[in-house]
């Protein structure tokens, strides 16, 4: 399982790294930008997933931190004349800081109360952003031209391939960070809090502080996504802070597989590609998205990646049992699922 998982991740990274070279060869240059956008949006889903899948908190307000990342970067460039990296940093600091403040209130609550307060926070700031046109451009948003990534090397976002690699590497760094965190002692604490809050307290874990740390980290990841999208589109707008956007990310994370590292990426990719392909043909494509979501939740409650992993694991352990007890037939999958 371990080895297979690592091989899969290496293959995925290699595939994503070679995309800008491969796609144009097939006349699919347009898709380089689609993949770049998927990678960016997947960070918003990863942020939802960190909270929901790993700590057990369902946030419907992660777009707020995405929006702060976006505006931090856009305002940094268009108003303060910052370079690309300082502007990126400003966006991330703004989103992380906002998450630190909002999280201090939100993580006192759980379940629907938590979900509601996250929505309320994002709504408040959505309306603030809409009304403060001098700063945010409100509905029209804020346009700017992107500074170079590295002037000396002549790396510009205007070059499609350069821009793709810039986005790819930043996203890769975020996923690497998440992979380290969920496998660390802190990640184990997250799991303990998700599994059993009461018992977590009773082994000496400060549940509130643990949730707050997760919330801040989720705000950071969403902020990176927002900052990248601002740079990608040379644009920021309050509409990205609306709770529709948060809700979409929740769907991506759940369809892909909450509690798995790559679930959000898979869910985001599937549903964005679906949107690209189907929305041109059928204006009510959202109904199809709803149907897909319901089907996944019913038939693969661990999401696509989660269910696939469980399937592979089950196959492997059945094989092993066969080898160990050749006379005994493997337990039927249904019985095993019930036992779990």
């Amino acid at each position, binding site marked *: 399982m371990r080895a297979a998982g690592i091989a899969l991740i290496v293959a995925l990274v290699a595939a994503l790294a070679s995309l800008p070279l491969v796609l144009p060869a097939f006349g699919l240059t347009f898709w380089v930008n689609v993949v770049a956008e998927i990678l960016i949006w997947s960070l918003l889903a990863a942020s939802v997933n960190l909270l929901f899948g790993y700590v057990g908190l369902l946030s419907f307000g992660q777009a707020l931190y995405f929006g702060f990342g976006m505006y931090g970067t856009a305002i940094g460039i268009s108003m303060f004349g910052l370079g690309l990296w300082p502007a990126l940093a400003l966006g991330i600091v703004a989103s992380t800081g906002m998450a630190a403040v909002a999280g201090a209130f939100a993580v006192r609550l759980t379940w629907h109360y938590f979900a509601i307060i996250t929505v309320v926070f994002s709504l408040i700031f959505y309306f603030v952003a809409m009304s403060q046109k001098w700063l945010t451009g409100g509905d029209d948003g804020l346009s700017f031209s992107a500074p170079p990534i590295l002037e000396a090397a002549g790396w510009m976002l205007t070059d499609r391939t350069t821009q793709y690699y810039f986005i790819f590497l930043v996203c890769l760094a975020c996923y690497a960070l998440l992979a*380290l965190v969920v496998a*660390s002692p802190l990640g184990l604490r997250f799991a303990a809090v998700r*599994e059993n809050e009461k018992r977590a*307290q009773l*082994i*000496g874990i400060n549940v509130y502080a643990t949730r707050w740390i997760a919330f801040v980290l989720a705000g950071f990841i969403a902020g990176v996504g927002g900052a990248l999208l601002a740079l990608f589109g040379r644009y920021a707008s309050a509409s990205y802070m609306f709770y529709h956007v948060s809700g979409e990310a929740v769907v991506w994370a759940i369809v892909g597989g909450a509690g798995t590292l790559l679930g959000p990426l898979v869910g985001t990719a599937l549903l964005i590609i679906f949107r690209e392909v189907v929305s041109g043909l059928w204006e009510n494509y959202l109904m199809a998205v709803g149907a897909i979501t319901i089907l996944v939740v019913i038939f693969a409650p661990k999401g696509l990646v989660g269910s696939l992993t469980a399937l592979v694991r089950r196959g492997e352990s059945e094989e092993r049992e066969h080898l160990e007890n050749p006379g005994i037939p493997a337990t039927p999958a249904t019985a095993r699922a019930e036992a779990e």
Partner: protein
Amino acid sequence: MENVLSIRGLTKRFGGLAAVDGVDLDFPYGVLSAVIGPNGAGKTTLFNLITGMLPADGGEVIFEGDDIAGLKPHQIVSRGLSRTLQIKSVFTGLTVADNLRVAVMAHEKIASPLRPALGFSGVNRRVEELLAETGLARLAKRVAGTLSYGDVALLEIALALANKPKLLLLDEPICGMSPAETETTVARIVALSKSTQIILIEHDMEVVFAIAERITVMAAGRVLARGTPKEIAANRDVQDAYLGAPEDAA
């Protein structure tokens, strides 16, 4: 200081019901104590007040000389006061080893966000120790949610021991166990009581009278009687309390 735990005037009301009603108690060092009483007597509520899981309406809880009333549960745990719950409570989605690992790490204040959780050799050793101590070694890789009821109860005791507690509160530790599991668990509790102070709530009178050295009887939120097993067995009030509700003794 001769008492590991002293309680003064501890009170908890749920609406009109005084679940714990001005209770004074002392639990001396070096003695395995038990709290018994019919259903609804307030035993679990007493433990909830001691461990900070419920705010008291009044009174003091003095643990090793310090008043711990008003502290948060995790703060009380880190002072060395652990407990198990009447409704067995473990991390069902984690393996047995990870259950213990997270408990040991919480105790040792290890919360590194970047190092692999499996890479702490001191923690791994302590996890092995706990597994061996509670006889769970053979189940280390099992997901806790797939364990038998008796093994879950054992795992919960192991979790409570992860912080090397000075005082361990056990709320009906053998309830739901098979006779064989009961026997080994009772033996473990007695062995543990040599190195750790233990107070247990238990309905199984045979077990209580066999292992407890000091018994407190609660009824309707108050202390009805305290004493050695012999004294309690001879106490008329206690006999009345139990005869009044014979099914409670089961």
